[in-house]
């Protein structure tokens, strides 16, 4: 029995949902979060120890390698009962197990791509595909970068048919908003028929 005091239910606890914004180093994750968030992105950190699975106390922490990973996130209050969080997730694949936690229960992910460095977002695409987390690819058109058609991006990164690819400018609120809408619509197509509402 988990101690959740639902008997004190005069207290209204809002529901929350998450969307992840992923992609390689410097692809515009924080910029996208900032453009739609109602608050300037906040940051928090997670401590990762090498033996971070199954550690119940940190006695002897000196012997372990610890890394601090910074996450930034924004917030969109949809109603007093529903809040959406956007988490910018670090791109390096050694942080995969943190992505696992972030992806759990998430609506899905927007994987940002910088066409000048396509390969830096490959790990993110691979991750969400494997975990069957709904995702879309948003091509962030940096100034001076060559323009690619979605089909060229799709074949270059071996992105499955059915995964939407959109153009984006992470600095523009409307553009980021459209990417969010695209992702949510895509996630809705992934709900199994007859699943509970």
């Amino acid at each position, binding site marked *: 029995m988990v101690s*959740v005091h639902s008997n004190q*239910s005069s207290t209204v*606890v809002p529901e*929350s949902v*998450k969307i992840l914004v992923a992609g390689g180093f410097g692809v515009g994750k924080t910029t996208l979060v900032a453009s739609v968030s109602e608050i300037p992105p906040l940051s928090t950190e997670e401590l990762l120890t090498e033996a971070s699975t199954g550690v119940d106390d940190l006695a002897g922490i000196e012997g372990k390698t610890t890394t601090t990973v910074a996450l930034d996130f924004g917030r969109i209050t*949809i109603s007093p009962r*529903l*809040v959406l969080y956007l988490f910018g997730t670090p791109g390096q694949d050694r942080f995969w197990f943190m992505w696992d936690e972030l992806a759990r*229960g998430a609506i899905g992910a927007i994987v940002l791509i910088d066409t000048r460095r396509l390969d830096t977002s490959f790990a993110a695409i691979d991750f969400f595909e494997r975990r069957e987390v709904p995702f879309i690819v948003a091509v962030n058109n940096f100034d001076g970068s060559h323009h690619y058609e979605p089909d060229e991006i799709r074949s270059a990164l071996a992105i499955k048919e059915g995964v939407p690819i959109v153009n984006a400018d992470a600095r523009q609120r409307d553009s980021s908003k459209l990417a969010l809408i695209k992702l949510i619509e895509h996630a809705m197509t992934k709900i199994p028929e007859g699943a509970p509402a």
Partner: protein
Amino acid sequence: MADNDAEWFDEAAGPLVRPYAMTGGRTRPGASWLDVATQVVTVPSTVERVGIGPEQHAILEMCHRALSVAEIAHYVNVPLVVVKVLISDLIDRGDVVVRPPAQALRAPGRELLQAVLDGVRAL
């Protein structure tokens, strides 16, 4: 002193030692299902709360308005793993409420997604 030990001491001793003293050395919250987005709300109380630390008092103060685990970690300025322990203790004490764990880890259903979609479209 340019060896690994010194490096560990400089870089990690501050942020590590203090938080773990704060949680009695534990890194595992009882409520390990607490998610970064889980909303935490303080249960109003007229009696003075005793037996909790300053960080937990701060959490109770800020959560009169619902905040996520991640926001709390940011404002209290401790790593997520630490804030989860602090919040988990407050849940056990009945000082804060969260939604039941079954709802925390489930992918959102159609109705919820529709509500999010409508909300984002209206931004």
